[in-house]
């Protein structure tokens, strides 16, 4: 009978969540409409790509992976970044951060949803997507890294979904999550987050045909940059929630995250420097990719300004986050977040994939720059992600605050729900 009651409660939980999602002020609806418009535009652009083929993108044989896969890679990093919050919260029992771990988990879910969409729009035969899902499909394990990526990304999505649903549903029922279930799941999400990013790095890293990617520093670089970009979103979000809801977020939590980001950015820049040194000093033919990235080759300079912008943003953000005063000041803190976001986005979205394929394996330079369809489809996918995230945060916030509870449940105490999970 308990199971039946739980199912009924869960149904109530779902319908209650729907009601919350459909209730909001003008600003909320403006934001939702804005996202829906972009999603619609992206959908129209994708329809034309579906109809005509990948010719609607600027990808060709020479540069056969590009903007879509760059976005995918960037977002895997964002998804992995939830661990930056989970580690201090659970491993070091650092309480101020515990309350906001759930935001990291929600962000991870939204990011993985976008990852899946970016892979889907990138493949030539999206109608055969099911070939990737055994038993009707077939995964070429253990040799294919993309097959591993499909496994770990779906696993990570499921894991975060279960954690979040379990936590929110427990709080909704006025109960504390059972830590014998909850803690192992959260701890498991740490290696899972590292796994998704490592496997994604290995997808490039393992290709001996592409010297720009075939460097063992790639996976560590991925992790370091992810630990910058993911939390940058969270810092901004935490401040927004603090302002618009009764959500209490300790200043110390924000500063701590910013401090960790400064270290991560230092490692990221250091690893980039190590890579630049190896290529420049040894001066082999492989230097050509880095030359294309930072200086262009002949008249082919389409991505050069973006790469310098990326380096500038990353350095500036590093300095802002390193100095305690600027990291604590709201203006410079948020400026730093935006700079980090731009820096890492350009580096992963353009700087990783495109120079890796330019020139191609036979020395040809095809200068790639995303087409309008690629920009529109990508904007649509980002909007889907923001929409998913917005709706999830909309439901999670009143639950965490104890405002959305099952009827008859004791009103939640004001203590931090994540902390009481312990």
């Amino acid at each position, binding site marked *: 009978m308990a199971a039946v009651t739980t199912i009924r409660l869960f149904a109530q939980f779902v319908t209650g969540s729907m009601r919350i999602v459909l209730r909001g002020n003008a600003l909320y609806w403006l934001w939702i409409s804005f996202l829906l418009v972009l999603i619609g535009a992206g959908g129209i652009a994708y329809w034309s790509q579906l109809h*005509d*083929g*990948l*010719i609607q993108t600027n*990808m*060709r*044989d*020479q540069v*056969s*992976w590009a903007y879509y896969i760059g976005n995918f890679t960037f977002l895997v990093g964002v998804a992995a970044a939830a661990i930056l919050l989970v580690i201090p919260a659970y491993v070091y029992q650092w309480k101020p951060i515990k309350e906001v771990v759930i935001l990291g988990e929600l962000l991870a879910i939204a990011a993985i949803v976008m990852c899946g969409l970016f*892979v889907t729009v*990138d*493949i*030539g*035969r999206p*109608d*055969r*997507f099911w*070939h*990737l899902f055994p038993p009707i*499909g*077939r*995964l*070429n394990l253990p*040799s*294919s*890294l*993309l*097959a591993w990526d*499909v496994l770990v990304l779906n696993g990570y999505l499921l894991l975060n979904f279960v954690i979040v649903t379990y936590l929110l549903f427990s709080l909704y029922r006025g109960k504390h999550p059972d830590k014998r279930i909850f803690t192992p799941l959260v701890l498991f999400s740490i290696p899972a987050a590292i796994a998704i990013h490592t496997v994604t790095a290995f*997808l*490039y890293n*393992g*290709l*001996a*045909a*592409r010297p720009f990617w075939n460097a063992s520093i790639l996976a560590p670089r991925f992790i370091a940059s992810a630990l910058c970009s993911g939390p940058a979103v969270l810092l901004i979000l935490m401040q927004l929630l603090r302002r618009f809801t009764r959500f209490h977020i300790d200043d110390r939590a924000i500063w701590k995250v910013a401090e960790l980001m400064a270290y991560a950015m230092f490692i990221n820049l250091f690893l980039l420097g190590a890579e630049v040194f190896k290529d420049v000093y040894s001066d082999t*033919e492989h230097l*050509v990719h880095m030359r294309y990235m930072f200086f262009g080759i002949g008249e082919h300079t389409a991505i050069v300004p973006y790469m310098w912008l990326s380096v500038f943003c990353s350095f500036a953000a590093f300095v802002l986050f390193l100095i305690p005063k600027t990291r604590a000041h709201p203006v410079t803190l948020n400026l730093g977040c935006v700079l980090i976001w731009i820096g890492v986005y350009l580096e992963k979205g353009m700087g990783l994939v495109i120079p890796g*394929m330019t*020139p*191609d*394996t*036979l*020395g*040809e330079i095809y200068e790639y720059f995303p087409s309008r369809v690629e920009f529109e489809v990508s904007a649509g996918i980002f909007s889907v992600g923001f929409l998913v995230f917005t709706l999830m945060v909309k439901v999670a916030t009143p639950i965490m605050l104890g405002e959305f509870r099952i009827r008859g449940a004791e009103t939640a105490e004001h203590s931090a729900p994540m902390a009481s999970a312990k």
Partner: protein
Amino acid sequence: MIGCAAAAASGGCSDLTHTSWFRGRFREMSDAEKKDVIADLEKQHSERFAKAVTVGAEPPLEGVEFGYALDISRCIGCRRCVYACVEENNQSRDPQVHWIRVLELDKDKGIDLAHANPYYDAEKVPRDGHFYLPVACQQCQNPPCVKSCPVGATWTEADGIVVIDYDWCIGCRCCMSACPYGARHINLMEPHIPAEELNPKTHYLGNRPRMKGVVEKCTFCIQRVRNGRYPACVEVCPVGARKFGNLLDPSSEVRYVIEHKRVFVLRSELNTRPRFIYFYGL
């Protein structure tokens, strides 16, 4: 095997794909299923191109492992191989897909791909100070493309030919990133071949008409070589630079080249171990 009829009921099997959505992997089909699928395909293609198209499924021959040798001292860069290949293997004419890319290299730089020019004027060859290097699928013994495919849509056959199941490929292009020879090509749009130019003698794993969004490459003319013929590029080469044969037969021409000439493989440092070798015949 769920046939085209079942797929049609769910809206599959459309003009968009020229293939049944539910078609399984060729490698796992029983002989009866292969027969059904091939009958389907022959009917579809014959109707579409208004001529009798055959789709073969000849298996590898016993005791045969194909090998290819190309004489770079003879090649003049005329690109006849490129166009013979397009005609034989039904590559798209619009947009153009070429399985062979001939590189013009500087004599004083040697095999330096960073300075290769694939867009030279083939009317003016051979140009002074240059030599030519045709590159296509090297049919590697350790193929990075096969390793990278997430769905197992490409594999090495017993006779050494690396093939693609066009009905199973999802178009993710991992294999293209993995290939050090630029040998793999994606159909960016629906391939277009004028009906009168279609070569109606095809093989399931080779030159049958492809569809939008899948990857294709050289198969040593699988439809020819499994029937005892030479690849089209070997036949058309005006200077006899292209040699082909059975690596397991000590009296074959490729074996003769390996034993009597100085050979090299492209990108040997990557350990792909090609079955396609280059040699200096003169």
